[in-house]
């Protein structure tokens, strides 16, 4: 017994080493190949994008600073007007924030129902879980701009199409994040409530919501940040608010750059402000929760 192991050991070690080296080499080969494919994809993708662009990358590179420099220098010359312009565009900013806030609220309510109805153990109609999941997948997949453009055609320009478009996407996106949270809820509270003969909405309100509320609010705040950006962008295609004013100001071209600068400042300030506020509250809400 001992004899066999003694004579067999060096042989075994050699074999293990050889197979380890072979495995290592194979892994290196695969890693190298993946890296190579990735690099080829990046380079060829860049070249295709560069070809199909109106202006080339290398010709345009040194012009990046030109437009901001023009805007800034003109804004600096007319700096006395800036406060007045900022005051002028403040209502548009309020509209942009309102679009984001309302759509986040509506989307969060919609997402709440979609997620509760689409989570195993919580759903009122367990057979319809796949249906509600597909609905939320679908709502998440539709880019805001698609709904916004169609609704602008039907409802006319203004904040309402943007609001509906963002709310639909938000409901889908939040439903997914919410159901990730609600899958981990402790069902004991729900069972306890069920034993007292509560209705489904009472079980959800009293048994589930208190458990998941901090995470839900945290995700909703994160979504609000994203939606401010989205509502500014949708304004650019005609849905009102700051983006709409920005497009108009830019269409005027030089001479009205001070207006564009005022809008840039407002937009930048708003996004940074809400980012900071919401990240502070999110940290506080999810404190001591592992994440």
């Amino acid at each position, binding site marked *: 017994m001992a004899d066999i192991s003694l004579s067999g050991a060096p042989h075994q070690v050699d074999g293990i080493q050889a197979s380890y080296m072979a495995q290592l080499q194979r892994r290196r080969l695969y890693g190298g190949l993946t890296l190579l494919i990735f690099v080829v994809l990046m380079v060829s993708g*860049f070249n295709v994008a560069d070809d199909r662009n109106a202006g080339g*990358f290398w010709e345009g590179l040194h012009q990046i600073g*030109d437009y901001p420099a023009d805007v800034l220098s003109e804004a600096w010359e007319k700096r006395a007007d800036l406060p007045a312009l900022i005051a002028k565009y403040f209502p548009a900013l309020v509209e942009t924030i309102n679009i984001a806030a309302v759509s986040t609220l509506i989307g969060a309510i919609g997402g709440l129902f979609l997620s509760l109805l689409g989570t195993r153990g919580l759903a009122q109609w367990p057979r319809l879980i796949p249906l509600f999941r597909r609905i939320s997948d679908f709502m998440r*997949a539709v880019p805001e701009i*698609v709904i916004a453009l169609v609704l602008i*055609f*039907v409802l006319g320009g203004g904040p*309402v199409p943007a609001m509906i478009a963002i709310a639909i996407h938000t409901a889908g996106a939040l439903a997914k994040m919410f159901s990730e949270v609600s899958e981990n809820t402790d069902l004991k509270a729900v069972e306890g409530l069920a034993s007292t003969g509560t209705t489904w909405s009472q079980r959800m309100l009293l048994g589930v919501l208190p458990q998941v509320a901090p995470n839900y609010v945290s995700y909703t705040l994160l979504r609000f940040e994203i939606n401010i950006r989205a509502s500014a*962008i949708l304004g650019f295609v005609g849905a009102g608010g700051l983006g709409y004013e920005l497009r108009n100001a830019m269409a005027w071209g030089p001479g009205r750059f001070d207006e564009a600068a005022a809008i840039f400042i407002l937009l930048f300030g708003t996004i940074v402000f809400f980012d900071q506020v919401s990240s502070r509250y999110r940290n506080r809400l999810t404190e001591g929760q592992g994440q």
Partner: protein
Amino acid sequence: MTTIDLDATKFEAEKLFQRKRLIGFGIPAVIAVYFVYIFFAFDLPGLAGRANLENAVTLASDSWSHKVHVTRDNRSGDVTYAVEGERKGTYPEGQRPDWVRGDEVIAIDLGGDIIVRYLPDNRTEIEIPGFQLIEAQAEGRTVTTNLPDDLPDWVSASDRRVGITTPEGRITLTGARTEVFNYFPGWELFWFTLDSPYYGQSLATILFGDQIDPARGNITGAVSDWWNNAMWRHKDVAWAIGETILMAFLGTMGAAIIALPLGFLAAKRFSPLMLVRAATRRLFDFVRGVDALIWTVVLARAFGPGPLTGALAILITDTGTFGKIFSEALENVDQKQIEGVASTGAKPLQRYRFGVIPQIVPVLLAQILYFLESNTRSATIIGAITGGGIGLMLTQAIQTQKDWEEVAYYISLIIAMVMFMDWFSGWLRGKLIGRKT
């Protein structure tokens, strides 16, 4: 002592309950008040006036159907047949739809016993069951008819223009031309345009039948005719979707490559200099705060419209986001593994490679793949602004306000594209870092 204690506790508890009650009723009340404010701030009562229901009906019906125009030019007397009234959809000389008959008198059978006859000398007869025979005569710039004074609401008539809308189709008569629109369900000419020899052939004939076009093999010819279809532009659409995905890919991956080293600079553990750390973090905040919209506008000035501009806008914005996420991940790495690697005599670079990178790779990959999917959506929107990809095609199709079936086609493609990227990034994540538990 105990009673005082009990009283104090009871008082505390009551205060707590009161606060909870206040929150329980207060927050919904505040939200309700806010909705009321929005109701008026967004002018929802006035929305009904601004909304155009006719547009909605056109959109809903045109997106799944097509119409064939039969147009008589009243000056020359020529009759043309065209799908959607477009030059690209015109029937070639000598061909016409089979619901049109006659040479001297052209009878158009709209179905449902509604028959329109183009008579010589610019006269028109319209037979509608349950209504009198309508006779119309176009002369110069006016149209004279035998219509009575009290018209049903599906007929509008003046001496310049007569419009008749029936469930089967529409008829408009003006001095210059007489037009009949016959509606059919489905997307006509989706596979082949009328000038292609493969139009109207069944799939089996193309695959297994005799050679249709003497110059080309059936399958290559059919694929090339479909690919170059002038009506639906399958080639351009495929390129546009490719551009959109390319924007998302280049932007996301480029941002990740740039953000990784910067993330080290912003993480407390790897960057001892406070100044460097603060500067990198402010840079992240800045590029994130400027937002993709402004970056797109600024970059479009330098690079012109196109996919590269969109890719760079995504790249710059996401560098900020990734930088923030990466540096947070780097601050949370486990020191023990780095120490373990260091104990074998590894140099700093080797310590990063074998002690740090393996820890953060799963977090990084998960974030990158998640952003790849979400950036496909952003790339659609950015494309609409900067002029590239499927976003641009969609905006153009909506702005022309007539190609609603194309709009429906693009929308389905966009949704399919996003769902595919969602599935693909999830699949790749599963392959690379294992299924999430």
